């Protein structure tokens, strides 16, 4: 079956994108990435004084995973910072893929929608393949598409909270109104069941870090997320049944005449 994730003209089998921060060690990080089956991994440069190349050892170690690298602009608060860092990442990692983050609030790391659109417009002009981390606001998402983003990454809930899909109404709206845009749920996913739910709702992929990196056994948790996302995607493709008000036995109950069932259902409705 060819059910590939298509982003900016590239195809991927895995629908799980993972981060590289907060792991107990680089070795555990790499083992977890491998267990997750991820083909796209994101990494941050902002605090590592990248001009001096002093984080090179750990970058090389991450690059050895063979995954598509998705450098991010975590920690940036203005489009100017973002653009400088993006250019530097493109040079260091030889990729024009970029997870765009413009942070509007320091505590919950909420994206700044205004800065996001401004930065995205400039980055697209400069030839970047931009994957913006955004809120679940339809209008913001549309504007990001207008300035040339081909993929959107709305949050499930704020980074690191593990609260899952907080505003399902908004997320459902995004999915329905932007049926042809690859939508990746980024941030806030705490449990495999939440990732599975996002896939069942029809999102194209899930990006997460903390839930795996900070698990007591990150490698096992990476595997759990891999399974949940595969399962959620399969369920979406298979077509989920609709919820019903009353129990409906899969085999006929002989001792209950059918008109009685109808009456009961009608009374409840």
């Amino acid at each position: 079956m060819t059910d590939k994730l298509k982003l900016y003209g590239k195809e991927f089998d895995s629908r799980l994108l993972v981060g590289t921060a907060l792991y107990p060690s680089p070795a555990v990080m790499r083992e977890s990435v491998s267990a997750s089956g991820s083909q796209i991994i994101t990494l941050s440069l902002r605090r590592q004084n990248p001009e001096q190349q002093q984080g090179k050892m750990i970058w090389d170690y991450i690059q050895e995973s063979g995954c598509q690298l998705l450098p991010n602009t975590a920690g940036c608060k203005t489009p100017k910072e973002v653009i400088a860092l993006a250019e530097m990442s493109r040079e260091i990692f030889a990729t024009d893929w970029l997870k765009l983050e413009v942070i509007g609030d320091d505590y919950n790391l909420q994206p700044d929608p205004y800065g996001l659109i401004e930065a995205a417009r400039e980055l697209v002009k400069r030839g970047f393949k931009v994957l913006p981390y955004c809120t679940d606001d339809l209008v913001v998402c549309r504007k990001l598409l207008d300035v040339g983003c081909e993929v959107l990454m709305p949050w499930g809930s704020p980074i690191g909270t593990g609260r899952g899909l907080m505003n399902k109404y908004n997320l459902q709206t995004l999915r329905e109104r932007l049926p042809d845009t690859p939508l990746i749920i980024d941030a806030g996913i705490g449990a495999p069941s939440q990732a599975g739910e996002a896939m069942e709702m029809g999102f194209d992929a899930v990006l997460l870090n903390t839930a795996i990196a900070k698990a007591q056994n990150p490698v096992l948790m990476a595997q759990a997320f891999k399974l949940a996302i595969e399962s959620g995607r399969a369920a979406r493709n298979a077509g989920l049944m609709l919820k019903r008000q009353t129990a409906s036995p899969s085999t006929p109950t002989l001792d209950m005449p059918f008109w009685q069932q109808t009456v009961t259902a009608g009374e409840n409705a």
Partner: protein
Amino acid sequence: MPQLPVRKEVVAHAELNIAIAGAGLMGRLLAWRLSTEGYRVSLFDAGSLDKPSGACHTAAGMISPLSELFHCPLPIYELGMHSLQHWPHWVAQLEQEVGVSVDYRQSGSVLVAHPQDRSELLQFQQELTSKLGGAGGDQLRWLDSRGLSALEPELDRFEQGLFLASEADVDNRKLLPALLQAVMQNGVRLHDHTAVECAPNEVHMARGSEAFDLVIDARGLGANGAIQGLRGVRGEVMVVETPEVKLQRPVRLLHPRYQLYVVPRANNQTVIGATEIESEDMSPISLRSSMELSSALYSIHPAFAEARVIETRVNCRPATMDNLPFVESESGLIRVNGLFRHGYLLAPALALQVEDALSKLTQETEQVT
């Protein structure tokens, strides 16, 4: 599982000539232990001995196996508990030899969190219990605001906290000179400003090579080129001074993204650290890091606002890719490295492993000759 060797009684080893490369904590501790046991020891360092350039000088000197277990693998805890058994009598012996206190304090540590991060305390307890079973739970005590105030009156703005009674700390800025003085008293040959490369039975310097019966490479990040996969992880620390806040013991502030500690020192000084950044960047502290550290300090007690910043420290910790330390020996050469953010926690246990490797090598040599 790390090997925890049993010490054997050692007699005189006057005939054995040992070079130790690196006069950081590990090198000094080994030089002191081995010279006390009667070995002829030479200690080399690329920098100055009065002002060590390594991570040991930057650190806050915490010996906290339980707190560190939160995000670290089990061997760190096990080695740390082993060290904790030895620190008290090693310190007592050292203080007696040099006649100076190094402010070793085993009065536990307190963990607190901001109200919005309170789930971190629960997460800490869960992780401890899951890694250590029931034994983990026994080692921590929940404190309500009254319990906290009784233990640390300055922490009265926190509603709850955890107390880890067995943890300790030592003033590294007193311990390092004390160890140096002790090794000088023991007649150790000191070579400062002497960068070396280590080979079996040989130390290479700019001015030529010198032969030894055994070389111990304890250079930390100085061994960068010699040990594959050794990397530096940047850490930033601030030291402030105020007579207004009197803490009795190390306090950790749990936070979803940072691991912050506050360690009270003599002379109204407080050490606050530390960032952990994946880069071998030795440039001065960044404004962001200093803001993170100072706001953490301020949130522990607002009177810290008027404290004076008397020092900022930056260094890189030597770490392996699995963030675990190692002791590796071959004929004529022992390497010990990768102490990462746990220098004072791990050093005694690793020194004992080195001593064990040394006695094995000596036995092999005796059998050959």
